[in-house]
């Protein structure tokens, strides 16, 4: 049932501009039972450079899992999601949208763009931590991720 018993750590790309949310997420994923490396992109442009191995990221690994905020500087999260899901190499990587938006319109639209899951960010840091723990537990321990 664990995907990563094969040895190589799981590469997670976290696309998030809030310093506090980055720290909480890193903290939660460090506690996960499955070995993982979290790469952080602080804006949409940096995320696309990482994913398409451009600019400062020519040697970036193809992530096994992506956590994506929707409201980002430079390039919007919806645009990034659309680019990922229409790309042959990146299209199969699970993308978990983690955002503060609770609008039903955003939720439906994001699923139509083939986001794998939509999670709203709780305002309370303790509840946020619990949500990220649950993401880590499900996606790292239970789900079989597509490995390259």
């Amino acid at each position, binding site marked *: 049932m664990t995907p990563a018993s094969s040895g190589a750590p799981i590469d997670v790309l976290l696309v998030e501009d809030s310093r506090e949310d980055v720290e909480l997420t890193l903290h939660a994923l460090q506690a996960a039972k499955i070995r993982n490396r979290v790469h952080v992109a602080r804006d949409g442009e940096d995320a696309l450079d990482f994913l398409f191995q451009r600019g400062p990221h020519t040697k970036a690994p193809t992530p096994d899992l992506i956590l994506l905020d929707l409201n980002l500087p430079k390039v919007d999260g919806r645009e990034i999601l659309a680019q990922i899901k229409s790309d042959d190499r990146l299209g199969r990587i699970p993308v978990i949208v983690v955002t503060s938006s*609770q609008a*039903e319109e955003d939720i439906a639209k994001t699923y139509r763009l*083939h986001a794998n899951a939509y999670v709203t960010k709780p305002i309370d840091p303790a509840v946020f931590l619990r949500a990220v723990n649950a993401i880590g*537990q499900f996606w790292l321990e*239970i*789900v079989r991720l*597509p490995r390259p």
Partner: protein
Amino acid sequence: MTAMPAVPIEILLVEDNPGDVRLTQEALKDAKVRNTLHVAMDGVAALAFLRHEGKYAAVPRPDLILLDLNLPKKNGREVLEEIKQDDALRHIPVVILTTSQAEPDIAESYRLHANAYVTKPVDLEQFLTVVKSIEQFWLEIVKLSHT
């Protein structure tokens, strides 16, 4: 995190093995989030359910689908593909729940836009654990689209 919805979450389980159906029902019965489990035992019935055809004219549209890959009449890959190409259905998360551990099955399912791929453990306790984590993540943490 998901606010307690007033209406129960509708789940469609597409599974031909009665033992796995029973276990899934058992695991979801004690869920914190109120849910109704509907069962389709083959691929054709699943699509008829989703499209409100025949005897399924009055069924609710599911908020979440749990889909086995190896099914009678129409296999899970085809069902997944049809769901994800249908404008009225493709926003519904589909979690593949199968015994197959084959990498090509995993890659193909994600390529066809499965939302998550989970393998069924043979061990009974582990099977319950897996269904409970699906419940915990998809019912308690995720925001489902209720359109």
